[in-house]
């Protein structure tokens, strides 16, 4: 018997420095965010896999906050090469220079004492 649900398993892996997503053993599609059942086919046989971490920016914005509220905040939707989408941000680049179609790679960072998945631009 498993000792934790998919959400805790995901964040435990992230805390250990690894990005893991699920893959459905019935329909072979990848799944994110982590679930108990496959949202594509309904099967409950989801296995953890380690994706390449490579992805493409699907859309991007910069939330313009006052400096007192934390300043400008880059927000992006990233399509991993495995076919799942996640919200994140692209770091190590001017927030306004993030473009749809930009290739990015995942990295586990720390935020408020918790692991958080962010992305960096990659060549090509």
């Amino acid at each position, binding site marked *: 018997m498993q000792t934790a649900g998919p959400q805790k398993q995901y964040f435990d892996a992230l805390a250990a420095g690894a990005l893991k997503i699920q893959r459905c053993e019935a329909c072979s599609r990848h799944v994110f965010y982590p679930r108990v059942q496959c949202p594509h086919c309904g099967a409950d046989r989801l296995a953890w896999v380690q994706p390449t971490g490579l992805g493409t920016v699907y859309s991007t*914005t910069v939330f313009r906050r006052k400096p007192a509220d934390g300043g400008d*905040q880059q927000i992006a939707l990233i399509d991993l090469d495995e076919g799942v989408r996640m919200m*994140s941000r692209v770091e190590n680049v001017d927030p306004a220079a993030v473009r749809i179609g930009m290739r990015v790679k995942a990295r586990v960072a720390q935020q408020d004492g918790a692991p958080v998945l962010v992305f960096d631009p990659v060549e090509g």
Partner: protein
Amino acid sequence: MAHPLRGKTAIVGVGHAGFGDASGFTEMEILTQAALAACADAGISLRDIDGLATCSVTSGMWAMNAAESLGIRPKFIDSTMIGGSSFVEHLLPAMLALDAGICNAVLVCYGSTQRSGTVNRAAIASARRLLDAQPYEHPYGPAAPAPSYALAAARHMHQYGTTREQLAEVAVAARKWAQLNPEAQMRDPLTIEDVIGARMVADPLTVRDCCLVTDGAGAFVLTRADRARDLAKPPVHVLGNATAVWHRQISSLPDLTVTAASESGARAFEMAGITAKDADVVELYDAFTINTILFLEDLGFCPKGEGGRFVADGAIAPGGRLPVNTNGGGLSCVHPGMYGIFIMIEAVRQLRGECGERQVNGARIAVVNGNGGVLSSQSTAVLGTADTL
């Protein structure tokens, strides 16, 4: 053959209260004022209400608060909360309950003092992080909706060549309608340059692409069509209603340029036996300028991707080819947290011919589309005058 629910119920009264700044009043107090106004409009008493549909941004048990405060003991209670579209979504369960004889008069109502009250938008966003945690999105952004809509706008621009100016056209058209509506909160002149040059909120959306933050309450009364004929105002019949929910978080919407309005619209139009071209007046939940463009496409007023070009050159402004958001919309009329009740009220008033300077002449069929969450819930309604039955 006509759908068995088509036209079987009618909106017989509408009312609102507390537009703009309701300082000194609670949201229940202005909700009650709106409910009383809707009953008076229908020529009935609050005592005649035996069905209640309502929900709140902050209270999870709001139907009980409302029944208690209004002093009613409803036989039908619906407090479905799917964001701003809820008050359009409330139609279908109420139609079923009325048609089945469970109750005779349903009050749909909402009130918020989000601008003047102690629980303001920032407080609500903060509470939502705790009560409605989204651990895969909240670390990257606020519980506030603007960035999610900005992501949709950016994608639409990328995919279809929609321009910054075309988004601004939506806000300018809303303002021109608002200038014809003495109840609208923002009536100063507004140009495309003003919209684009305003303070950036979330690229590409400026503050003038975003709905207002106001107080306000609204209500309407729904009865069976046979009873509606004997009441004070001409009945506005519900020809169709359908709701679709595809996601909660924007990262779970597969294509950010296609919303569930494409599904809710198709089902509502099928029930009503109409197509988009039959609409005389259109009320869309314009929380942000991109909404109007997305919903015009998804409801079939123009092909997917053409919404930006469709709204250009004042096409949805007064005197344009299609009257859209004739009260001034959430962008310029009123927006107390959840706006869906007000698109219903405006559609009813247009079909009754009560809209003065902004009246769409001869309006017989109105299409309403409510939106909730972050493009998450969509509820489409088709309303018609008695001669559309």
